[in-house]
Structures are given as C-alpha cells and as structure tokens.
C-alpha cells in the first residue's frame, strides 16, 4: 500500500511526532545526582554503605565485600564491634527502623572469611618504606591501605599479637578471636611485615635505622586512668584494661576476681569488664556509675546486653572508699545542669574486687625528643592529613583527639595512609584529606557529592513496609557462663532482607520509576544493567518534574535551565 494513496493530512505516519522536540518547553531540567547517603556520611571509616548495600541487596556479596574493603579491611570485626553511627543516621529510622547495616556488614565479613575472599591486589611497588607503630585498628588500617598503594610497610607492636584493643580490649564474646585473626591474616597476606613484641621507645632512631620514609604512630590509649580512690591496703583494685588484656594471656590463666565484683565507670569498657567478670564466675557483677542511664556513655545495646546477663547498675553512685571486700559509696543527685552532686548519703557495697573503668590514656613517651610534635590533653595534634608537626610523622587512633572507637581508628588509618602516600609522592594536598577520585564507586556516573540526603527528599511511598530484622542473640543463661559470641549473625535470607531495606538515599537504585512515570517518554533506559542505567532525553523532556518527585531515593533533582 503506497502512502501516496492515503488521505492527505488526516492520515499520518505512526510515531512521526518524534520530529516535535518538546524539550524546548522546559524551564527546569531534571538531572541525576549521586549524593552521600546519611549512613556513609556518618561512617567514621568512610565506608560507602549505600553502595555496598546496593551490591549486597543483589546478592552480590563478594562485590559488596570488595566495596567495603576499599575503605575498611575489617568488615567482620566492624560488623561486631562498631557502634554503627550509620544506623543512627539512617533515614529509614523515620519510616520504621534503621536498616541493620552493621549486621549485614558482619554477614559480608563472615562470608568473606568463610569464602577465603582475598584483599585487593596491591599497586606496583613504590620503593617507599613506611613504619607503622602500633598494630591496633588504625595502625592496621593504615598498613593495609599503604600496602595497597604499593608501599613497603612494617608494623611494630609491643604486644605479642596484633590487633591492639581489638584483641586486648574487646572480649571474645563480642569479637571471637578467629574472626580477628582471619581479617588480620588478609593484611599479612599483602606483604605487610609484622614485628611484634617489640616496643618502640625512640621513633626517630627507629625510622633512621630502618630507613623508613614515613612513620605512622598508632600506639592507642593503653593505660587505664587511675582514679584516686582512698583504699585500704587489702583492697583489690585493678583497672579494666588490665583485666581485659589478661584475658588474652593464656599462660597466666584467667584472672581471679572473687565472688562479688564492682566495676566503676559508665563506658563500654565498664560493660565489657562487668560482663567478663560475670563470665569468670562472679555471682554479683555490679556497675557503679555517677549519673543516670540516659547520660551513660556506654552504647545502649551494650548496657542492654549487660542487664540481660544479670549485671546490676547502681545509678547516681560514686565510690568514696575501697576496703577489703567492701566499698563505701555515696548517693549522688543531678543538679540543674545535669552534673552529679554529692548528697552526703553513704552506703556500703560488698565487693571482692573493684575494677576501674574510668578512662584510658596514651603513653606518649616514645615521642620525647621528636621535634615539632605538639601535644594537648595527653594526645597528639595532627592536621587533616593526620600528620603531626614533624614532617613525615603521622599519627592516628586513640592517640589523637577523636572519639575512641575501633571504627574511628580504622578511618584514621585510611586517611593517614592516603596522607602519607601524597606526602611521599609530593602530590598536592586535598581539602578534605580524602584521596582524589577515590569516591567514585562504580566508575559510572558522577561521583557522589558531599551533600547529605534529608528524609524529606525521599519518596517513601515506594518503599515496602518492612521493620528491621532483629539479630538473634545467644540464650542469656549460656551467655553468662561462656565466652561464646553473644550476638549471632544473620543468615543469608535475613541479611538479604535487611540489605533490601536500604532506601538508597540520594543514589539511583534502578527501580525504573523515572523511566516509568515520564509522560513524555523522555527517560532513556540504558542496557548497562548496573547501577546507573538512565539518561534524560532532553530533546523531549518538558521539565514536568514527575521523575524527580517520584524518585524513591532522591537521586534526581531539578535544575533551572540557563536562559
């Protein structure tokens, strides 16, 4: 049938309106963006949580693991001991409950161990040598990243085994040692030299002797603060760090604490000490804390688990005097500013051992005589690259001014590694201390912008109603008698469920909504299949904004057209 025969004008060729470029109607244009999800923004280790969840929710666990490993070599450890500020920041809190990021991370870490998944391959050898002093989380993190960057790394630590506070400060029931060892082994496999049981007392001479081009100090805060409590000579007082450290000394055998143990302090170490005491056979394990529960620094989950295990807490109480078998305590009350004030009411508390968990300090003696290093409040001042005032000497972890957690330390290690790398290469500094271009995750689409995604930016209608999966816990009876791990992991289906609860804030999750809802068919779906498969066809986009409004995760925004 010839088209010439068709009636003029009233009969048309199909699809011929593609000649009419309605894009000229537009005053605003939608653009795809990649924003920093609140979880990643809150992660001390700079993990791009949204991105690794993206892989995890596809069941691509190894890919997810590798995404974590770009930032953090310890997913199995962090999946257990991190206090997950990511979950606090998670936008899903405002919908139902935060995504169980931490549990998914642990699942991935455990999968990696079970599967023997290796670290990424290091870059070509740079010929540079870096000394890392301290085999704790920041030192190991730095060593890992430095090794990946191609530098020769030597780690020295006074302790007989690597791990720092991860081994000597965190009880086994929170972090099984085979998990720790497995993740440490991956770092050793990168060729990092471990020189353990070797105390470093003079940084400069060790650097010169070993011809190290740079040094990263990560000696931690290993000294327990000795609160000045008047004590009788027979009183048994130990500090919590010593107790926890002694738990790792197999030769010495378990410490003897007695039937009744009091722990003084309100931080996580206090919880660890009390729970350890309970496991060592104490009938009564009592925490004495000056303030109220809502002011307690310990993480809520730690306290909750402790309470479940039968630990008692004496709130608003201070210890005035320690004697053999008993403590004199004073009731406190909070003043109008929330500070505890003595009431003059005294009491007695039976305690065979008093464990002090009232803070930790850094031993900075090894820095004596090192020029340019400034100290303040017992810690070392560093710049945003974590370099001290002495050229080529960097520091991180508990010995610099920061929150003292494993994850913060891991973040320091990574940041310092990149700072050292730039310093070694003479590369220009970056404003944030983050390596340039490192934020690109998939290599497709624009790099995430350091803009966080408020909840209001999301269109939560599209997310299925799904409350968080609660991680199973070991039965309380068994918990108080063994050092078996208390919090159990997710199985694959629950981990997948949890990963899929992620709302992918500010990052396309490939739900096809923009493609589906465009009344002008102006969203092109690309067949890349991966993370970022859409483009706006600006020839036809009229700028209605439906794609932006209906994007569940806020990965699109309207920008005014330049006139």
């Amino acid at each position, binding site marked *: 049938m010839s088209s010439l025969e068709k009636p003029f*004008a*009233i009969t*048309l*060729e*199909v*699809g*011929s*309106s*593609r*000649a*009419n*470029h*309605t894009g000229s*109607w537009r005053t605003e244009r939608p653009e795809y963006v990649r924003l920093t999800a609140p979880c990643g923004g809150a992660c001390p280790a700079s993990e791009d949580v949204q991105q690794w969840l993206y892989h995890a*929710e*596809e*069941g691509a666990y190894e890919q997810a693991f590798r995404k974590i490993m770009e930032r953090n070599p310890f997913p199995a450890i962090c999946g257990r001991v991190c206090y997950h500020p990511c979950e606090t920041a998670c936008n899903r809190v405002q919908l139902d409950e935060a995504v169980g990021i931490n549990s998914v991370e642990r699942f991935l870490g455990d999968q990696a161990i079970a599967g023997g998944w290796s670290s990424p391959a290091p870059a070509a050898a740079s010929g540079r040598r870096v000394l890392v002093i301290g085999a704790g989380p920041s030192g190991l993190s730095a060593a890992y990243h430095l090794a990946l960057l191609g530098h020769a790394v030597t780690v020295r630590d006074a302790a007989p085994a690597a791990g720092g506070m991860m081994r000597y400060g965190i009880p086994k029931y929170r972090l099984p040692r085979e998990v720790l060892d497995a993740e440490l082994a991956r770092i050793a496999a990168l060729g990092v030299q471990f020189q353990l049981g070797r105390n470093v007392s003079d940084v400069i001479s060790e650097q010169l002797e070993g011809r190290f081009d740079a040094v990263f100090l990560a000696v931690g805060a290993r000294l327990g603060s000795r609160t000045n409590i008047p004590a009788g000579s027979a009183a048994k007082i130990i500090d919590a760090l010593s107790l926890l450290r002694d738990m790792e000394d197999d030769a010495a055998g378990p410490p003897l604490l007695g039937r009744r143990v009091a722990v003084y302090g309100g931080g996580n170490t206090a919880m660890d000490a009390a729970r350890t005491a309970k496991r060592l056979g104490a009938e009564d394990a009592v925490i004495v804390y000056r303030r109220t529960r809502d002011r307690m620094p310990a993480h809520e989950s730690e306290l909750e688990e402790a309470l479940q295990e039968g630990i008692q807490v004496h709130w608003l109480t201070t210890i005035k005097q320690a004697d053999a078998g008993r403590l004199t305590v004073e009731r406190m009350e909070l003043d109008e500013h929330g500070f505890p004030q003595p009431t003059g009411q005294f009491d007695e508390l039976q305690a065979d051992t008093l464990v002090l968990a009232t803070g930790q300090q850094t031993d900075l003696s090894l820095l004596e005589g090192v020029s340019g290093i400034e100290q303040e409040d017992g810690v070392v001042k560093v710049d945003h690259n974590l370099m001290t005032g002495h050229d080529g000497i960097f520091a991180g972890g508990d010995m610099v001014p920061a929150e003292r957690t494993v994850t913060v330390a891991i973040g320091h290690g990574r940041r310092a590694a990149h700072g050292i790398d730039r310093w070694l290469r003479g590369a220009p500094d970056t404003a944030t201390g983050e390596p340039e271009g490192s934020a690109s995750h998939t290599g497709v689409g624009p790099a995430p912008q350091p803009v966080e995604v408020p909840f209001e930016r999301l269109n939560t*209608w*599209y*997310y*299925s*109603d*799904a409350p968080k999966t609660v991680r199973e816990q070991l039965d309380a009876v068994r918990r108080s008698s063994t050092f078996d791990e208390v919090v159990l992991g997710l199985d694959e*289906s629950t981990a*997948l*469920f949890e990963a*899929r*609860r*992620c*709302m*992918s804030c500010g990052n396309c*999750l*490939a*739900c*096809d*909504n923009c*493609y*589906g*809802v465009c*009344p*002008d*068919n*102006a969203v092109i*779906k690309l*067949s890349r*299949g991966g993370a970022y498969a859409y483009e706006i*066809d600006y*020839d*036809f986009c*009229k*700028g*209605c*904004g*439906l794609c*932006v*409004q*209906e994007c*569940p995760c806020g990965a699109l925004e309207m920008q005014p057209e330049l006139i």
Partner: protein
Amino acid sequence: MTATRLKYFQTGSFAAGNRLVNPESRSVQSGAERANAITCGHRACQGCGEALGARYALDAAMRATGGDLIAANATGCLEVFSTPYPESSWQLPWIHSLFGNAAAVSTGIAAALRAKGNTHTRVVGQGGDGGTVDIGFACLSGMFERDDDVLFICYDNEAYMNTGVQRSGATPPAAFTTTTQAVGEEPGAPWGQGKSAPLIALAHEIPYVATATIADLRDLEAKVQRAMSIRGARYIHVLVTCPLGWGTPSSDSLRVARLAVETGIFPVWEGAYGDVTAVTKIRHRLPVEDYLQAQTRFRHLFKPRRRDALIERVQARADRNIRRFGLIDPVEYDPVALHVEGGS
C-alpha cells in the same frame, strides 16, 4: 489477588520496576522494550496524567496481545495532543472519529475483524470522561449490552479539560470548573450530581469492569492484562490527574492520584458480570483534606475561610466508599506477603 510469601524487595511492587525482580515479573513500563504506544513529541501539558495513563494502558494491552491491537479514540485532549497534523504520536493502528462515538467505532472494528475471521487482533476504545461518561455514553452502553469484544478505557480527569475545564458528569462535588465556579453558598460543582460510570458499566453485567489510577502502575497493568485475557465487552476506568484542571504542580500528578486512593475518594476495584470481585485496600489511610488541599480546584474549601461543613461532606463521601467497597481491611496488613514473585 492472592498473596504469595516471597522475598522482600526494597520498593516491592510499588515502583515501576526493580532491578532485583525477575524480568518476567517487572512491569511493562519498566521494560526497555515496552511498546511506547504513544511516543515522544506529543503536545500534552507538562505532567499530563492522561498521556501517562494512555501509555500505561496501551503498552500493557500491546504486551498482552503481542502488539496485535487497534485503538479507537474519542475526541479530547488525548486525541488533540497526540495527532496534530503532520505528526502522530501513536505507534499502533489508531483511529479518531468523533467525540461521542469511540465505543461504536470500536464495535465496528471488532465486527470487521470478526467478519474477516481475524480472531487474533484485539480492539481498545478510549476516551476522556467527557467522551465516555457524557457524550459517548449511549454508544458505550450499546457496546456493553451487545457484549462486543472491545476493551473501553476511560481516562477520567473529571472535567472537560480539552475545552478549558468545564464540568462533566464525572466532576466531583465542590470542584471548581469554569462552569461550576467557586462562588455562592455551595461553591464549585453541585452536590448530588454526577455518576459512577464504572458502576453503571458493572450493571450491564459485562465480563469485566475495573477502576485504576495512574498512581498504581502494576495494578493498572494487571487489570489491562486481565481484561485482554477476556472476550466480550470490558471497561477500565482510570483516574488520571490534570495539572491544568486540578490546579496541581506538574510534578504532583502521581502524588495526587495516590491521595485520591489513600483517602477513599477514588475506590479501586474490579468486577465481573455485575458483581464487585476485588478491591485494592487503602495502604495508609489519609483524611480527604490532604487530597483537597493539594489542588487549587478545591481551594475555596479552605480560603478565604475554611468550609468545614463542605470538607466533612467530602469526607463523608470518602467514608462511604470505604464502607461500601471495604477499602480498609480489618486484618493486619502483611507487607512482605504482598510482593511480586521473583528476584535473586
């Protein structure tokens, strides 16, 4: 719909697609290979709900028929914005005849196909609420009572938008249109008028009647697919938003349609042979105020002073829908159980 307990997905069945879902379980609209029965370059307003609804419905019908489909269109926005000489946005055989006769033209197409022994090609008639509920109603009713093998789809935006927002038989009470202006004691469209075309369709005892909205893509597609699996007269009444006539931002077209459902203003249901057979439950019930305030056509209910009595009358209408169709399930909603099958 029966619920199957399956793996949970981020956006479940609410978003158009989901990279995690098996390809066969994804919506037609999410597919790169969708027909785009109405394609780019059409001249609909920004954010046009009808353009969207038509593509949703016809693409679903195209998939259901393997592209073996003919459409007849009533006069109205959809026709005007899609076929101004010299350009057509349609990619399937399509005919526009008149405002009031789309159902009869569809009947003619179906009769011709039957006469030719063509049992594979299917027919869809479509029009706006004016062309369906009002001027085209006699032809529609005739098509229904003869049980002609036609699926008729009404894209209901509740007024004559093509001619500049005049009242139709589908205009809800209190809505401003240019012929029911926001003046007088009871501003906007009169109370006690208007009709439910889908319920009238149901009364013809035809094999399939359904309502749907552009806000629930999968539901709409499922209904079109079901309709295409049936022979005889079928009717789907799709609520489509009109940014111009409703006074909504162009980006709100789906949100407002969603609100119509979640408030109970627009009941979403399915019926067959005279009975309602299924309803789509309200997911998160909202007061009608949320719906009304989103649209300037109801602005006079709030400004210059709140008209509580009128708002309550609208609420009462929604409440009646909820009771009448059982839009809220007393049984606790199990979100995980209601998601489509598939996934890794």
